[in-house]
């Protein structure tokens, strides 16, 4: 195969593989033209196959004016979306130019689907916020959803925000209109602390300044949207960052090999490095960095590798390797009490005192909402008091987790600073959190018990429950004969996940008790309170109520 064609092919491959990848997301209010803009971008960069374009042309739906093909249909891929004329869920599209490769997340503007916007935006390098010029002039200000999305983009730490002022064709391509909108957007963006903000006048429908410079807006001399996307500088991973290697999986194919698999989340891992395991704080040395393609000397974010250590130390999924050199300065925060900006994504409100499941890196724990420090009014950006958080609301929340998390602030690291909240009963993903930091001094607060055992004292069991409930906890007595001894552990665990304390006056066999203890140690925040030989008042106090 040593032909000229092959040599050229190798060259092509090298050039192609060396291309940078940029991920960007659309954002903005419903109907301001996000999907049409993406369709236009794909169309004008010749990234649409003929059969796909033909299918769009013959679609029964067409909402585009002036006899244009409705390019929004290229991304609005669900039946319901075409029928309702709105985007419901994020669509991912892929295209490339001679300069870069792109992954687009076209997200919905409708408020109801803000969670899907956050989904698409969470991994983006650039957010393209659309602003409908005509709607702006009509309202005299940015629409609430444009503000919300810009705010979420800033919270998600998207490095660059570009506002595409769309539908310029409907405002006569007027420069004054563009200026007014640009002024207001730049003001809002600076309040959010956004560092890189660009504003471009476009018409997604007519194609002005999307890929081709606009003739109708000769007064504009900045880049087209595509030019901007092709040239905006990409953040590069900083190899001086401290090492964070969350363990995903322990691999033991045979008795001779024990490897810790994971993706380097931050920093650099080198063979021969001294490393520290968290939370055990045991030290060891990296013996090998194993991959299918051979051992590596060095691995950096975002490589997926398997690490073999010199010593047999205790380390499992959900734990983390960091550099021993960072033991003094440069460890992640290790704590059970943390603050995070939470975007709530569920119909059922977040309530202070409720317990949810948190997934952070490869670690899954339970987390109780201790307080809402403030909610953000998205219109004014003011901080307001709240004790619950409705869907799409955003707040800084204090969480207490069942086991410590090892994290960096989200502003330092997306991968070790992000978490999701899951409802323990429905398993729905209900919130997204960007960690701000630890909670300063939580001294003197006891935690609620997971299980209170008061063998043979049924009346006391009831009393404990009432006392817990009176203090706003949820608790149930599980002495029902229908709950067999066999099911006991599972019931306690299920209650625990739901943030409910279990109370029982049963006399458990020692083996069963050991099983319960083991199980609870694995996941619970609180402890087992044993009423053996303790007086009633003390049991009620120990049941874990804040003093």
């Amino acid at each position, binding site marked *: 195969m040593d032909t000229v064609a092959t040599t050229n092919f190798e060259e092509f491959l090298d050039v*192609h593989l060396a291309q940078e990848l940029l991920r960007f997301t659309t954002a903005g209010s419903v109907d301001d033209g996000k999907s049409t803009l993406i369709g236009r971008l794909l169309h004008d960069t010749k990234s649409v196959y003929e059969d796909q374009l033909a299918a769009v042309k013959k679609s029964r739906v067409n909402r585009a004016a002036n006899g244009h093909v409705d390019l929004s249909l290229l991304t609005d891929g*669900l039946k319901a979306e075409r029928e309702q004329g709105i985007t419901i869920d994020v669509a991912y599209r892929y295209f490339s130019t001679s300069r870069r490769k792109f992954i687009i997340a076209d997200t919905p503007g409708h408020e109801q689907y803000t969670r899907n916007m956050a989904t698409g935006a969470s991994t983006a390098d650039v957010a393209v916020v659309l602003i409908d010029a005509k709607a702006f002039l009509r309202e005299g200000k940015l629409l609430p959803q444009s503000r919300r999305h810009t705010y979420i983009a800033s919270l998600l730490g998207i490095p660059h925000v570009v506002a595409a002022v769309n539908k310029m064709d409907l405002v006569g391509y007027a420069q004054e209109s563009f200026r007014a909108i640009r002024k207001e957007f730049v003001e809002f963006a600076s309040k959010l602390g956004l560092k890189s903000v660009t504003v471009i006048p476009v018409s997604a429908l007519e194609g002005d300044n999307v890929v081709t410079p606009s003739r109708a807006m000769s007064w504009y001399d900045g880049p087209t949207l595509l030019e901007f996307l092709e040239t905006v500088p990409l953040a590069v991973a900083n190899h001086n960052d401290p090492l964070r290697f969350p363990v995903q999986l322990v691999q033991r194919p045979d008795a001779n090999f024990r490897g810790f698999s994971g993706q380097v989340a931050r920093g650099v891992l080198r063979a021969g490095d001294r490393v520290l395991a968290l939370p055990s704080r045991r030290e060891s040395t990296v013996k090998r960095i194993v991959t299918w393609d051979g051992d*590596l000397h060095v691995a950096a974010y975002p490589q997926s590798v398997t690490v073999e250590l010199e010593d047999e130390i205790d380390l499992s999924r959900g734990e983390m390797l960091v550099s021993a050199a960072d033991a003094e300065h440069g460890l992640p925060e290790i704590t059970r009490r943390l603050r995070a900006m939470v975007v709530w994504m569920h119909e059922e409100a977040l309530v202070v005192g409720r317990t949810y499941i948190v997934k952070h890196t490869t670690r899954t724990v339970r987390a109780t909402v201790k307080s809402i420090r403030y909610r953000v009014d998205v219109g004014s950006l003011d901080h307001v008091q709240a004790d619950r958080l409705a869907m799409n609301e955003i707040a800084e929340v204090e969480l207490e987790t069942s086991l410590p998390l090892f994290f960096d602030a989200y502003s330092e690291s997306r991968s070790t600073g992000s978490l999701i909240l899951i409802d323990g009963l429905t398993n729905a993903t209900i919130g997204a959190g960007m960690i701000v930091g630890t909670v300063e001094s939580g001294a003197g607060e006891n935690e609620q018990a997971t299980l209170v055992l008061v063998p043979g004292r049924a009346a006391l069991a009831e009393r404990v429950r009432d006392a817990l409930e009176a203090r706003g906890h949820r608790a149930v007595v599980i002495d029902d004969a229908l709950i067999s001894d066999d099911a006991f552990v599972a019931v306690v665990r299920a209650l625990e996940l739901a943030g409910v304390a279990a109370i029982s006056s049963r006399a458990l066999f020692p083996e069963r008790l050991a099983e319960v203890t083991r199980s609870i140690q694995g996941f619970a925040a609180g402890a087992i309170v044993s009423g053996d030989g303790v007086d009633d008042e003390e049991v009620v106090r120990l049941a874990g109520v804040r003093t």
Partner: protein
Amino acid sequence: MTQATALETDTTLTPARLNHLQALEAESISILREAVAEFARPVMLYSIGKDSSVMLRLAQKAFYPGKIPFPLLHVDTSYKFPEMIAFRDAYTKEIGAELIVHRNEEAIAAGANPYTLGTQNCCGLLKTRSLLDALAEGGFDAAFGGARRDEEKSRAKERVYSFRDQAGQWDPKNQRPELWNLYNSRLRKGESIRVFPLSNWTELDIWLYLYAEKIPIVPLYFAKERPLITRGGQMTLVHNGMKLLPGEEVRTEKVRMRSLGCLPCTGAMRSEADTLPKIIEELLTFRRSERENRAIDHDEEGSMEVKKREGYF
């Protein structure tokens, strides 16, 4: 792959910037491992096609030096190309993977075929039903699939972890939010998740990776003189035991398959591309999508979405 090269050339201990395929590979391996860590009983849907071949190699890499810790499941409609079956058996044996083959024998015995049933119904019985049965029988709570978002517009809407209810169905209007790489694997009994490690790969990425990694694929992907007929507006390869309809005439042309499905419903294309570089060069000139030669996708607008809702991959 190119990581090994990095090791040889890089003596300075400075990490090299990952190229595009290496970045995709790292992401996919992470997805595979995450699912294996979190699900009780995963399985990998193995369709024998180019995407499955890439996914299988990624699984080998993810669990190296161990073996792939889950079985492969092939849903055999009985209409697969004989070359595919031969390749499947030889290759899975060579790499030591556990293979489960599932067929909806009842429907096959009853003579289910796309000509009398229509492609929708035929697929429904031989693929979707069969797949759901196989998943239920095996008690699998997670199934890896090689689908890519760039294949089709309803697939572009798919999460990496795609939740299925007890009936195996997809509700595209109510998907779980999926932020960063934090996947929610929590399920109630009977529910399951389809995991798509190749979500962010494009067709071009797949071919480049097959080339870079020297991954074996079914010979049908390479152009060769093959006997065929024209049926239903597409070039259909002739195979043993196929009944010709009146007026159909067998001829020979140099053709290849751009994607592999069932014999009657996957059309061949004229091509001179008999090596991977030629296939890739050809791909760059294409004006039409890879699924165009798959009858199932364009019975009507949105037909892929309908199938996916019902449980199709």
